């Protein structure tokens, strides 16, 4: 089965049900609880997390370990309990990307990764020491 995502950036996109993710608590500070995953380009480096409800709302994500091989996610017990994932290794982990005019200034938010498991997604606070909200991607 597919669902239609309406996007000002991409037009109408047919998404497989598996590419639609429910965020019970939304994203921090943003509206909406249903997002679709839209691959960007062919190489899979970036993926768009696009609201199913707001055609204007989309955030680029990437998998942190392609850029930060030693990146670690540590969750507090209450956070792990809230999302029902105790080992982030069992889930898909993404970080949001801040795209700027110059690629050298692209950054990722390592403090608040997005964890997706079994069709549900959560933006969590990473308790690890070395997790800035703005880590340069191409430094």
């Amino acid at each position: 089965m597919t669902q239609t995502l309406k996007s000002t950036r991409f037009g109408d996109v047919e998404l497989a049900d598996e590419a639609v993710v429910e965020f019970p608590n939304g994203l921090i500070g943003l509206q909406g609880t249903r997002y679709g995953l839209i691959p960007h380009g062919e190489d899979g480096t970036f993926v768009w997390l696009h609201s199913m409800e707001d055609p204007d709302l989309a955030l680029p994500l990437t998998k942190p370990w392609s850029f930060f091989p030693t990146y670690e996610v540590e969750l507090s017990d209450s956070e792990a309990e809230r999302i029902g994932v105790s080992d982030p290794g069992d889930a898909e982990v993404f970080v949001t990307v801040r795209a700027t005019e110059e690629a050298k200034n692209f950054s990722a938010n390592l403090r608040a990764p997005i964890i997706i498991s079994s069709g549900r997604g959560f933006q969590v606070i990473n308790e690890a020491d070395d997790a800035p909200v703005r880590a340069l991607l191409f430094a």
Partner: protein
Amino acid sequence: MLMMTRRAGQKIILGDDITIEVVEVAGNTVRLGVDAPRAIPVYREEIWTAVRAENEAAASGTELPAAPAAPPDQA
């Protein structure tokens, strides 16, 4: 804003199921205990504010390097 005075060991209750306890007061630091249903996320305000700012910046960033792929037929 509602203001109230609490001492160490005293609590406030939000609704029926969120309890915030003043655990310890030491100098200018207050240690709080939050007891909330597990579905409710609890954040330190400065982290929440910084993450919201990054989310908003990510949502209003420039285009990504390569041109977006054609809409995936069955992602």
